[in-house]
C-alpha cells in the first residue's frame, strides 16, 4: 500500500470526503460562497465610472443596455457525487467580458475577474 493510501485508510479520508460531498450544509455553504463571489464581482465593476454606458444598437441588431455586463455574471453549479465534490463556477457571459477583463483599443484593462479572485485569495479558484 502506498503511503498516501495508508494515510487515507488510517484517517478514513474517503469516508469523510463522501460524507462532506453528500452534506446539505456543505452544499448550502458553497452556494453562499458562490453568491458572495458573484456579488463582489458585480460591486467591483459597478464601482467604476461608466461615462460611455448607454443604450445603443449594434450593426447585428443586438440592443446593448447599461448593466448588461453585470447581469451576465452568473453562478453555475456542477453536480458532485460520492468521490467528486459539488463545484460552483462564476462567469461573465456578456460579449464584452474579455475586453473588460483584458482591455482593448477602446477600453482600459479593468480586470474585475482578477480582482475578485485576488480578494478571495485564489489563483483561478476560490476555496
Amino acid at each position, binding site marked *: 500500500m502506498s503511503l498516501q493510501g495508508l494515510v487515507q485508510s488510517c484517517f478514513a479520508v474517503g469516508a469523510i470526503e463522501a460524507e462532506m460531498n453528500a452534506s446539505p450544509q456543505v452544499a448550502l455553504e458553497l452556494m453562499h460562497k458562490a453568491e458572495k463571489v458573484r456579488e463582489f464581482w458585480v460591486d467591483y465593476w459597478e464601482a467604476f465610472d461608466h461615462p460611455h454606458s448607454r443604450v445603443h444598437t449594434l450593426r447585428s441588431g443586438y440592443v446593448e443596455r447599461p448593466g448588461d455586463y453585470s447581469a451576465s455574471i452568473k453562478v453555475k453549479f456542477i453536480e458532485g457525487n460520492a468521490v467528486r465534490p459539488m463545484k460552483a463556477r462564476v462567469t461573465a457571459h456578456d460579449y464584452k467580458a*474579455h*475586453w473588460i477583463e*483584458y*482591455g*482593448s*483599443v*477602446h*477600453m482600459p*484593462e479593468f*480586470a474585475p475577474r*482578477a*480582482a475578485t479572485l*485576488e480578494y478571495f485569495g485564489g*489563483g*483561478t479558484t476560490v476555496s
Partner: protein
Amino acid sequence: MGLLSVDGVAVQAEEFLVAYLSPTLVNVATEMEASPPLPFFLVKRITGGEDMVSDYAVVSIHCFATSRTAASDAATSMHAKMKALNAKTSVTVGGKAYGVDFRYVEEVPFYVDYEDKTLRRFVGRYRLGLRLLKVL
C-alpha cells in the same frame, strides 16, 4: 538587496518587469502609443495587495504583433523569460538591485482580441512577491 522593513516600500512591479524583460525583449513599456513598434510588450499591474512583508502584485503582460503567429512567438519568448525569474534573480531598477520572493504564473499567455484588425495580442498574467524594503 536592501533591508526588510515593515514600513518600507516595494519596487514598482511594472518598472521592475520592464527592467527585467528589456535586455532580452525589444519594446517593453508600461504605456503604448498608437501604431507602436512591433513586437510590443505592454506591462500593466492590474491588482494585488500588500501585507507587512511584501507587495503581491498581479501583472498582465500584453504581447502585440502584426499576426497571430508573430504574437504567439513574442508571447512564447516573454513567457520563457518570466518563468526564468526566480528568487535568485537580481534586477537593477534606478541604480538599486531588487528581486522577487516568488513568481507564479496566474495565466499562461493566450490569444485575446484587441478590437484592432492591425494588431494581434496574447496576454499572460503573473503574480510577484516583492519584498518591502527600508528606504535608505
